[in-house]
């Protein structure tokens, strides 16, 4: 069940234009190792400045930790420790430890020291993509502080703990093992701990990191997260021991292919016939479906895939994407949070007065299955603001940057909230979680979900569904509130009226007051008995605006 590791020998050709003389341009081609290419393109991973790098480092490691725990049915316990390593130079050490499945001794150098060292050809919902993020962080550490990464890990059930100090040879894309130690695992610890030293701006990143961890916890309330930093200590205790079922691993849907993938699969076994190829490597394709497709696409089912020409491969790919006879993509590879857990997390973090959540039925775009979950939180400790506060999540990862270009924000903005009895400023938070085997991000920074029609539709339906529940709640509240206001208003005046009339006519005031109170009860009824939650709001002053 551990990642079976297969090394993909990818090389990326990097092209640089050099101005040699004013008359001619000589283009020099240079082969770059993936590690070198990523080192040169670190902004792709969001490592644009020391603040962002700080946030990104914590994010990548925490996400790996969550993947290494909850995906295997382990309740996550994550410790994050941040220290100034060399304050004058702006160097910070980041340590992240989890109680996950760990990494086998022999795999540790490759997992951390070789770019594109990935799990096998299988899809399922992940937070990160093949652990690429962590390697980017190591490359970033190397290029800013030139300090190695420290790794300690013990797989489940291992009686040894392994410790490595590693660097990446960027030119060769190979790990350099600086130190290796092993210890006896007395307490049967399992998990992974990593520590890097990077150039980072902790004071500036602090708020983001705090918000990131808070939101991570909100969507994964079964996790326990502790952060120790120079001037910040956060402890998010585990709220529940319920874990969402881990996603299964599966094959890609035939509609989700591209030419590169097809070529890659053909290379694995060129002797397969087209029929065999389709049933072997794709999800939900049986003999019948394969033949129906090949007939429609005008391909010979018995043709060997290795004999396909370049043009035929392109044609096959196009047809696979166009064909409408495939079975719908399965959602078994997805792991939505679920309504119950979502509500628990939101209640714990936002402390609202009302919350409703929905997990939609699976849907798909371009062969990628996805599920949208949405929740609405209202009142309580949510501060009133002029528009809804949006919490965005993709595969349980909170998205903090780039809200403006996110389809979720767009949908929230386009909804006419007055239909749901929301009048701004309002204490309203909208939480949307999109999970998919492939999240369509707007850019490589992976901070905003792109405007895909199918996903947008699902988000709209999900938000509307919970918004209707909010409207019901507000309507009920309003009715209750009306009774309260009437009762309180009349009762408030009754004392004054009774006293005045008592003075004028000489009747006892108490008697008049009692009679008036009877009349009020007869007219508006007794207000509902307050629940505990409402008593909490006691002593809040209420302006009586109703009749003004």
């Amino acid at each position, binding site marked *: 069940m551990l990642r079976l590791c297969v090394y993909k020998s990818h090389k990326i050709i990097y092209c640089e234009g050099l101005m040699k003389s004013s008359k001619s341009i000589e283009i020099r081609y240079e082969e770059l190792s993936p590690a070198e290419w990523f080192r040169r393109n670190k902004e792709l991973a969001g490592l644009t400045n020391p603040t962002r790098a700080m946030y990104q480092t914590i994010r990548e490691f925490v996400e790996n930790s969550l993947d290494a725990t909850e995906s295997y049915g382990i309740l996550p316990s994550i410790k994050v420790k941040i220290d100034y390593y060399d304050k004058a130079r702006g160097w910070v050490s980041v340590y992240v430890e989890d109680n996950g499945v760990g990494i086998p001794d022999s795999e540790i150098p490759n997992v951390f020291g070789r770019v594109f060292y990935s799990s096998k050809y299988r899809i399922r919902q992940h937070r990160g993509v093949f652990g690429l993020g962590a390697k980017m962080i190591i490359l970033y550490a190397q290029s800013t502080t030139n300090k190695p990464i420290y790794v300690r890990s013990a797989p489940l059930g291992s009686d040894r703990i392994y410790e490595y100090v590693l660097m990446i040879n960027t030119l060769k894309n190979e790990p350099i093992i600086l130190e290796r130690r092993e210890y006896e695992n007395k307490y049967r610890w399992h998990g992974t701990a990593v520590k890097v030293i990077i150039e980072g701006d902790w004071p500036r990143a602090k708020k983001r990191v705090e918000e990131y961890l808070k939101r991570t916890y909100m969507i994964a309330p079964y996790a326990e997260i502790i952060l120790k930093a120079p001037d910040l200590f956060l402890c998010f205790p585990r709220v529940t021991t319920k874990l969402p079922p881990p996603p299964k691993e599966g094959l890609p849907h035939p509609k989700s292919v591209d030419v590169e993938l097809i070529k890659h699969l053909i290379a694995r076994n060129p002797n397969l016939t087209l029929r065999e190829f389709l049933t072997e490597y794709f999800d939900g394709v049986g003999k019948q479906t394969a033949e129906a497709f090949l007939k429609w696409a005008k391909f010979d089912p018995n043709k060997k895939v290795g004999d396909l020409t370049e043009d035929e491969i392109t044609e096959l790919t196009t047809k696979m994407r166009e064909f409408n006879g495939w079975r719908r993509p399965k959602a078994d590879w997805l792991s939505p949070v679920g309504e119950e857990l979502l509500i628990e997390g939101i209640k714990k973090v936002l402390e609202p007065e009302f919350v409703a959540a929905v997990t939609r039925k699976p849907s798909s775009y371009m062969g990628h299955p996805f599920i949208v979950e949405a929740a609405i939180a209202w009142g309580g400790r949510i501060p009133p603001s002029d528009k809804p506060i949006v919490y965005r999540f993709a595969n349980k990862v909170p998205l903090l940057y780039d809200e403006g270009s996110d389809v979720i924000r767009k949908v929230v903005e386009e909804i006419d909230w007055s239909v749901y009895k929301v009048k701004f400023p309002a204490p309203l938070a909208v939480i949307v979680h999109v999970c998919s085997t492939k999240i369509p991000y707007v850019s490589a920074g992976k901070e905003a979900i792109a405007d895909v029609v199918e996903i947008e539709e699902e988000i709209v339906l999900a938000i509307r569904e919970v918004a209707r529940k909010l409207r019901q709640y507000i309507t009920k509240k309003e009715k209750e509130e009306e009774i309260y206001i009437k009762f*309180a*208003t009349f009762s408030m005046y009754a004392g004054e009226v009774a006293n005045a009339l008592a003075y004028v*006519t000489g009747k006892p005031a108490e008697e008049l007051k009692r009679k008036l109170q009877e009349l009020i009860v007869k007219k508006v009824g007794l207000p509902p008995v307050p629940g505990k939650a409402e008593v909490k709001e*006691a002593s809040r002053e209420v302006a009586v605006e109703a*009749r003004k």
Partner: protein
Amino acid sequence: MVARSRQEVLKILEEWGKRIVEQIERGQEPVIEIPARTLSNTVWDPVKKILVLGPERMRRRFLDLKESRKFMQTMLMLKLIVEAIRENVYPTIRDLYYNGKHTIVYVDPRKRVFKENTWDDQQESNAVIEDIEVATSLLREEMGISADVKGKVVGPIIVRSKGFEIDATKLGDAALSLPPNPDELDIVKVEANYVLVIEKDAIFQRLNREGFWRDENCLLVTAKGMPDRATRRFIRRLSEEFKLPVFVLTDADPYGWYIYSVYRSGSIKLSYESERLATPDAKFVGVTASDIINYKITDEYVIAATDRDIKRAHELLRYPWFQSDAWKKEIQLFLKMKKKVEIEALSTHGLKFLHDYLKDKIHNKKWIE
């Protein structure tokens, strides 16, 4: 009109309170019926040339969220008035406002604290005084409640108050301030030809110092803008009891003209009082819109009318008591020119011109009504 004694007034108020208590004791929602003091319930009586209260009545219910606060305020005011009579004091409407103003605090079953002032400004407390007046057919003056009196008079009149005789010709540049209840004022002697009512105090003072009343042997009165009840009652008495012609001088704008109509016919808010306060024979001498042309008022005195002025002028055109041909012509001219002037504009041909203007208007009967 026979003024009732304060003891009779007290009895009426107590009876009124008793009837409300009886409703409560019978287990009925307390409701008070009050003639509506609204524009729709203000009726123009073309024979008497005054505004009177129509037959519309509103029911102020205690258990109606929109009316409850006013109900409470009415009861509170009733108590304050009864208290004043029982203790034999004569508060002003402002005194009553302060006496009654306090914060009511109520804690509801949810422990939420409701806080509210009995009334927030004097308009609210004044309104319930007027409600009590119409509901009980008693006048504020009869209850011994006074208001700030803005009115003053100067000229050939001798009055007696609390045994002291005051001759309003012997006040120099000063003037006689009117008392809160002019009905209690004994008018000993009036030897004036007419009464000139002036909207603005500054013009009143000028004419006083310049000896206009001596020249013309007339009385000068001002109420400094919108007239109060005492000033209006005083002018009514001069017209009714001494048959003096009454002339009104205001700025040439819709607000000035409405002030004239209040002297003459009464106001919408206090139409129940018109019988006592209005002077239906009062004439308007100016300043009119056509005066701007007829008296060749130069441009530096002419002011462009604002949107509010225009709106107000359209309202006047709809009032039944502005339907005389002369008034319609003036208002339409104003709407056409979109120009207004102040009384001061009559200094356009020298400071003494105001005197000539007034004499011309009054002696050559160039007034409108």
